[in-house]
């Protein structure tokens, strides 16, 4: 039933009057659905903006082309990038300065669709990023909706606010990154069935994406370790299904030249505010020096495409496998052309450095 709700609708709608909230995913073609997972203000929307921004130039040298579907979406993502870059334009030359990022959370669920196509070829792959407010993961009013989303999405992109993970002995980690609810939704909705069983649903990929980790660039091993410790229950559950789910840690540096500095303190105590009965630092302070750049922001997209194409290849080789989404790929008029791009993309995957780790890899990406 949940699937039908998803594919039927034509636009995203948040019905605040209903006690049980619903969200409808729209697409002109059957898409690859990617759910952005993470707590409030941990940077999910920023990730999307930088992924899109970076992927455009990253794929520019290849035969692949990525385009945004619709003007509104283009404007939203461009505005977000402008906001990020705006922090840099406010600082002068090479002088160090401090800033406090905008703390306004996204209140509405959004859907961003990127179309990936091959120059000169027909057909495209639609990547449908679903970005719901962080509050949905902790509010029972949205539980059914989130359950349906987690169950049906092919890829989960778990955004992690790294300073909250690492600083102050991690006391703000749970409040910001909402590890327990995230783990809960994954455990509840990942009903894995062996891949060679005809009743199987499509395999999934979960990418843990540490954000705002510029401060820790020289010690990303520690960030990696902290993720393993924090998401221990989640990893344990997923390791029991290591033949059906790709799990990777893919840090991205969305704002090189900027670093988290400290949580503002008063009388030697971090100044806090309370949300959902949990205390969070009120004023995270970042420093900025030099000009804007970023690193590895295209990687989540590269991982997603390689994962998808590897699976398509396997489906083609083992016709007894079945999957709703990959049926669509195999019916794509340019399927052979996409599969030819796979190895090229695979070479661009960052592995085993600066915090990158493919934790389990049944798809051999």
């Amino acid at each position, binding site marked *: 039933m949940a699937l039908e709700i998803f594919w039927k609708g034509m636009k995203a709608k948040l019905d605040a009057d209903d006690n049980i909230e619903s969200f409808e995913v729209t697409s002109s073609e059957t898409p690859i659905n990617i759910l952005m997972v993470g707590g409030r203000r941990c940077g999910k929307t920023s990730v999307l903006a930088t992924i899109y921004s970076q992927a455009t130039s990253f794929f520019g040298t290849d035969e692949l082309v990525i385009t945004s579907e619709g003007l509104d979406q283009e404007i939203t993502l461009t505005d977000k990038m402008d906001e990020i870059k705006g922090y840099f334009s406010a600082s002068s*030359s*090479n*002088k*160090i*300065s*401090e800033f406090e990022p905008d703390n306004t959370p996204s209140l509405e669920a959004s859907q961003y669709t990127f179309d990936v196509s091959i120059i000169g070829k027909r057909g495209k792959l639609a990547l449908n990023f679903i970005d719901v407010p962080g509050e949905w993961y902790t509010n029972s009013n949205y539980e059914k909706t989130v359950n349906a989303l987690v169950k049906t999405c092919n890829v989960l992109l778990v955004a992690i606010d790294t300073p909250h993970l*690492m*600083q102050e*002995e991690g006391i703000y980690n749970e409040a910001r990154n909402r590890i327990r609810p995230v783990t809960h939704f994954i455990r509840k909705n990942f009903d894995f069935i062996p891949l060679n069983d005809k009743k199987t649903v499509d395999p999934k990929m979960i990418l843990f994406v540490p954000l705002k980790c510029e401060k820790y660039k020289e010690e990303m091993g520690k960030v990696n370790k902290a993720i393993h410790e924090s998401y221990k229950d989640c990893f344990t559950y997923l390791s029991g299904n290591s033949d059906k789910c790709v799990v990777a840690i893919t840090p991205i540096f969305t704002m090189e030249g900027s*670093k988290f*500095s*400290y949580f503002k*303190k008063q009388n*030697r105590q971090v100044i806090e505010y309370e949300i959902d009965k949990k205390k969070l630092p009120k004023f995270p*302070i970042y*420093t900025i*020096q030099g000009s804007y750049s970023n690193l590895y922001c295209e990687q989540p997209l590269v991982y997603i495409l390689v994962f998808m194409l590897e699976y398509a290849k396997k489906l083609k080789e083992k016709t007894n496998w079945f999957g709703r989404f990959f049926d669509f790929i195999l019916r794509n008029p340019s399927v052979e052309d996409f599969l030819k791009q796979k190895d090229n993309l695979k070479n661009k995957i960052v592995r085993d450095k600066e915090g990158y780790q493919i934790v389990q890899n049944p798809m051999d990406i």
Partner: protein
Amino acid sequence: MLQSISNLDNRVIPAFKSSDCTGATSRIKNVVGQKQPKAHITFYEQSEMIQIVQKYFDEIFGKDKFRVDSFEKIGSFNISDLKNQIAIGSAESAKFDHLKKYIEHFDDWKNEVFKGFIDVEDENKIQEYVSQHNGETENDPKRVNFYKYLAVKECEISCEFKNSDTGDIVLRDTIGLGDTSIGIEGKMLDSIGKHSDAAIIVRRPDSLVGKLEEKDVELYKKLNSEFEKRNMNKWLFWLVNKTTKDSPFGDNSDRCEAFDSKIRDYNWNIADHKIVNVTDSNDVNDNFLKSVLETLIKNIDSIDNGILSDLNEEFAKLYEEFVKVRESVNGILKDVFAIYGKNTSNIDLQNTIGDTYSKEILGGIREHCKKDLAPKCNLSCEEFENAVKEKLTNIYDFIPTDEEIKSLAKQGNQTPFTVYARCTDILRNKIINDFQTLDIVLDKIVNDEKKNVVDILANKSKGKLANLVSNSENLTPNEWLEELERTVSEEEYPHIFDALEKFRSFAIKVEGFMIFKVRNSLTEIDPRVIPSLTSDTATEDDRTELAQEILIWLRQKIEIIYEKIRENVRNLYSVPNEALFACVKDLFDRVTFARDDSSEYFSLMKEWENLYKNNLNLLFADEYEEFTKNQATSKEWKVIADSLRKFGDKKYFEI
């Protein structure tokens, strides 16, 4: 001068111009209403007289050349024979003249010795006891010599002073220092040190050539070395006695000025010095005495403190003597109890002794290790962890303020880099200094654990050693252990002594296991790691900008340092627990398994057994009392031993 103050005359206070006249020292009390002077005269005992005379013999003829075997023998020495043995004009001649008086006039004073004391109210009679003669010159037929003073130990005279409102003042006369009697100087020092709150040195310079002489300087040095710790500048007065032209000594006023000015030049450590005509009652009472009393009232606290300091020194000596006595008595008792110990095989006491050291002490320490300390070994020591976390939080306070940075930038030819480096220098030192104060917390943790072990050793229901060394509340564990070590001598119980000493010396110092970790965490603010600063220091505006820029860097760096220190020390929170376990385990091993390499066979248990058996009377007082109930003397010994133990607390020997 004493006459001027007290209103007494030469009969009671001899002060003749002719020669040395004071025979015995007097104390003169102001008793309001006592118009007629009254003397309470105390005499030496026979044994004291023998000692006095023997001392003259020893000093004149050499030690023990002549022995004064009895009191009566004093009068039996042959003066001529004795005189032949000393050279005429030698230094001993003057002393011999004194000895001669004791021998030749033995019959004149010997009867007084038997009296103990007498009270005399007749002033003419008093003179016979305190004066050497009646004041007439030697050739004057009216001259009368007195000898009873030789037997006088002390004379206390009560009378109303001229200014009767001077209060409970007591004056103490002493024999002039020019007198050749033996022990005069000692008596004076004794008189000042033990009996006086203040002292007045009276000196009359000669009218023609009088000046401050070497002997005056020597006297001052002597007093200074004796009373340096007693705040001499609060109570010692130097009176320069001025005489007039119509006095037998002539006008010495210019010599007095010279004398007094020399005292001033020397800047002696005394309360005051004044020129006074001691025969002028007004000068003495209204000027000098008034000034002395006012000075004393002003200085009374300091004087008391000086006396207390002296007394505490005396008490310290007394305590040492007490410890010797206690050890002697215990030594005697040990011999008695050693015999007792050998005969206890058939009674329960033998088992009780064994149980006490083996179960209560050795077993107690082992159980404490096993149950209380071992389980905590790998756990964080909460008290220490909290203290470290407090220090960690403190580091934020050490960032220099905006104003401090600007002030640094103003000093000399500073560049942005040198200002930043200076800030980090300050920061590093402050952080390290603060972490070093963790030693205070560690000392407390170690002290608390030592208390636990001392309880096992001392508790009367456990090791009972508090019966040997009182474990009063005001003793720290280390003080108690030190006291125990003094009692458990190294010679008799070398291994127990060694174990106690090592345990007492145990300490955990943060320098050894943590400071280097903290220091290694400070590389972010190492002078070699200078961030890129854009400001320069040319103008006031630039300095403001620079301070802001440096503050941003420091705030960023301090967070990194915080994390690094936290990370680097997090594994050290259990160190106190581990160290305490090791320390107490080491004590257990030493008091249980120590071996003496020099001997073929050694039993540490025997050492423990001896310790308990040798101190049975104290450690097992009740059991011992049962054993000795038929021995009357043993009970007395026990009372003595108990008393000695009871008063063994050093606090009884302190003021």
